[in-house]
């Protein structure tokens, strides 16, 4: 069907009769039955382990599912190796064994957040107690467990790969290309919005919806590419180009956002006058996006990118006030960045489609690893896992008559590790799918299974049960619930060739579950609180601390290089500036109604948006400060700029402790007074300068720096406005 027009695909009978929800449920149910069938015919123990691989690894496309399955398989192998090594090293000492196991799993838990291969580390970590404790006291059993576990996992991966390939196949390559096409179209629309009315583009959606769409699609691209590299030779062959395409799209999204913010500052300026080629640039940008979309559809481009120099017209610039000039220069620098990025994008897509050889520099942008490695939230996640595992271990050792102690420790470890990648998940939300899985599995186990006499009957029951769970938990946000329900269904049913029925086993599992959730609830509060409101306030404070430190670095003298420690702190705080607003958005949406009080989720979202804008403005300020500055202007404006910087630093320090102290009226009046003083000072400085010298790059940089200062201050005022709508007292209030 590859290459068929979309309208033809939409008319196919299966597309019309069955929804994606039903199709996915049928495929998962079929793959589960197949996995059980093969495992039972080979007489392997723990047949439900094969079903686990199906339950946890199936995703929307073949490539993505296969990718996750391979990560599961390789994670199982690493975990098995670690388990065998630990058993061999500490066969008789449970404390040393536990310390060794904690070190290994702790490393796995630490590696999970922010890692595209997080599932590999999750499976490696959860496999160790599973293999070490399932085998009982005899080490020979442990080896047998490893063999069985690996076989069953591979069987599960093969089963669902076969089903996914043969029944309603969805190619990862097509999904990837569709996503990139969507993203390019969204950027084209956004550019039209920002440059309106210079180009007469019809718009399908509002800019807010388009920005949300770009963020969502960008977040999916990494996973789609991972899948497409596995199930498509064409993508695998051009994987470097595809990776750089995704990086460029991500940079374009960020540059586009900064451009949007700077366009607000020039709304009072008629940009056509000082930048006469702006209309031509808008048309060229639109054509460029259209050509990129055309190439992604497989058609050759009609023309390549044309250079449109965004030269400034002296008379137009001279008529502007100093701050409007500063805003215009900043706006133009963002347009130039967009120009470069879209040109690179064009060449990379042309390279992927084999129309031309890319001339884009293939060197990777160096992303500093340190901020991510020392992220306090990441370390807090490991602390939560550690507290949960050791609490479960100590309860299992010292509290008598805890049922199924091995299952208790294994489940606690698995769930607390999973919380490292989705720390905002409320424990209470996991309870319902887990309880449903146990109750549903118990009903089948007690009422239906004793009446079955053949695999045909068992297969039909399994199919119906798995179909029902997949159908009920079909949304992407319910993936954890679906996996938990399917896993407990398999564990409770305990299908085997020589089937035994033991109701005590079901009751034990049902008794262990509340214990596991209780341990996780304790670990959510101690040693580090993971309540949404606590994390939200913690991150807010961290964001402003980073801003305060970065504002202090603006006084660094280029002639006096900073010490290594200062550079290290700067890198860490720059990392916070880039990552904290995204985390705040996640935690902001997880805030409970009791913590919101009088404020609404929309107000919280607006507050987070203002922080994201402030982060971009700070980045602009820091980048502009690093460019060579005019000595003349710097000398004239030294005291005013120093006072401005010190004022900003002071405000940031205060906000890091009391974000509620942001007073809109106070900020506005201080900012307006500062602008007025500076405008006067700049007027004097420019009047004293040689007019030919005004146009030098250093002078441009100095004016841009003032524009960047103004941008930061404007966003601070905006934050104060949004902050006024937040019920800070309720957000800070202690609550059960």
């Amino acid at each position, binding site marked *: 069907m590859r290459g068929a027009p979309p309208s033809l695909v939409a008319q196919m009978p299966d597309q019309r009769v069955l929804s994606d929800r039903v199709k996915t449920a049928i495929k998962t149910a079929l793959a589960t039955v197949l996995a059980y069938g093969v495992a039972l015919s080979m007489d392997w123990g723990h047949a439900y382990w094969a079903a686990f691989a199906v339950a946890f690894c199936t995703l929307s496309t073949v490539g993505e599912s296969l990718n996750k399955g391979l990560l599961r398989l390789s994670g199982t192998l690493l975990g098995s190796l670690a388990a065998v090594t630990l058993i061999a090293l500490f066969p008789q000492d449970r404390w040393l064994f536990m310390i060794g196991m904690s070190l290994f799993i702790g490393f796995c838990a630490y590696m999970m957040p922010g890692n595209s291969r997080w599932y590999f580390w999750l499976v490696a970590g959860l496999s160790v107690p599973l293999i070490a404790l399932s085998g009982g006291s005899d080490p020979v059993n442990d080896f047998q467990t490893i063999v069985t576990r690996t076989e069953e996992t591979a069987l599960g991966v093969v089963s669902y790969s076969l089903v996914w390939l043969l029944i309603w196949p969805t190619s990862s390559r097509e999904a990837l290309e569709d996503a990139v096409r969507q993203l390019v179209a969204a950027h084209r629309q956004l550019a039209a919005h920002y440059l309106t009315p210079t180009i007469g583009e019809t718009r399908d959606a509002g800019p807010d919806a388009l920005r949300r769409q770009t963020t969502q699609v960008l977040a999916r691209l990494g996973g789609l590419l991972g899948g497409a590299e596995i199930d498509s030779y064409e993508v695998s062959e051009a994987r470097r180009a595809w990776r750089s395409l995704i990086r460029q799209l991500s940079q374009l999204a960020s540059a586009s956002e900064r451009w949007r913010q700077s366009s607000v500052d020039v709304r009072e300026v008629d940009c056509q006058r000082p930048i006469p080629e702006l209309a031509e640039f808008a048309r060229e940008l639109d054509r460029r996006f259209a050509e990129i979309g055309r190439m992604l559809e497989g058609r050759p481009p009609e023309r390549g990118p044309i250079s449109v120099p965004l030269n400034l017209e002296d008379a137009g610039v001279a008529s502007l006030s100093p701050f409007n000039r500063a805003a215009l220069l900043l706006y133009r620098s963002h347009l130039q960045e967009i120009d470069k990025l879209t040109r690179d994008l064009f060449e990379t897509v042309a390279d992927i489609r084999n129309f031309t050889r890319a001339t884009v520099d293939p060197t990777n942008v160096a992303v500093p690893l340190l901020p991510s490695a020392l992220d306090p939230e990441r370390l807090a996640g490991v602390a939560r896992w550690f507290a949960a595992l050791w609490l479960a271990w100590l309860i299992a050792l010292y509290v008598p008559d805890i049922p199924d102690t091995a299952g208790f420790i294994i489940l606690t470890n698995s769930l607390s590790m999973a919380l490292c990648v989705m720390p905002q998940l409320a424990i209470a939300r996991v309870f319902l799918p887990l309880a449903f899985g146990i109750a549903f599995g118990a009903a089948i186990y007690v009422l239906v299974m004793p009446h079955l006499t053949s695999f045909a009957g068992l297969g039909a029951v399994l199919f119906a049960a798995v179909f029902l769970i997949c159908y009920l938990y079909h949304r992407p946000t319910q993936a954890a619930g679906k996996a938990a329900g399917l896993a407990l269904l398999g564990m409770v049913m305990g299908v085997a060739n020589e089937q035994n029925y033991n109701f005590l086993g079901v009751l034990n599992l049902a008794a262990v579950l509340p214990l596991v959730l209780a341990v996780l609830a304790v670990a959510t*509060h101690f040693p580090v609180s993971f309540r949404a409101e606590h994390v939200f306030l913690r991150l807010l404070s961290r964001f402003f601390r980073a801003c305060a430190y970065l504002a202090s670095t603006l006084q660094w003298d280029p002639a006096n290089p900073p010490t290594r420690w200062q550079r290290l702190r700067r890198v860490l705080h720059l990392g916070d500036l880039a990552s904290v607003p995204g985390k705040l958005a996640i935690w902001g949406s997880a805030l409970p109604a*009791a913590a919101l009080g009088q404020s609404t989720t929309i107000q919280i979202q607006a507050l987070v948006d203002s922080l994201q804008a402030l982060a971009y403005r700070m980045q602009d300020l820091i980048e502009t400060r690093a460019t060579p500055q005019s000595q003349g202007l710097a000398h004239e404006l030294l005291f005013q700029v120093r006072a401005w910087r010190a004022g900003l630093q002071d405000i940031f320090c205060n906000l890091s402790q009391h974000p509620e102290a942001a007073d809109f009226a106070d900020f506005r009046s201080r900012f307006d007074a500062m602008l007025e003083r500076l405008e006067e000072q700049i007027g004097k400085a420019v009047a004293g300068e040689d007019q030919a010298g005004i146009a030098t790059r250093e002078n441009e940089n100095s004016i841009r720096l003032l524009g960047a200062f103004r941008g930061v201050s404007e966003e601070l005022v905006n934050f104060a406005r949004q902050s006024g709508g937040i019920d800070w007292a309720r957000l800070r209030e*202690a609550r*059960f």
Partner: protein
Amino acid sequence: MHLIPHELYVGEIFFPPMLLNAALGLVAATITARLSNRFRVSRYFYQPSLVLIALTVIYTGLFSIFLIPG
């Protein structure tokens, strides 16, 4: 006071009174916590999570003495 512990039973399943008392204690503590949140009394506690555990222990103790003695 007799020293022989007694057990509760449902059908043929025997269990200690402490289990029932602890379950009731947890339920009572949760209800108290919900009411404290509802009427904003919880803001006067320094660490509500610890208070919840303490309340569970207190209720369990009270039930063990007055409601279902062991």
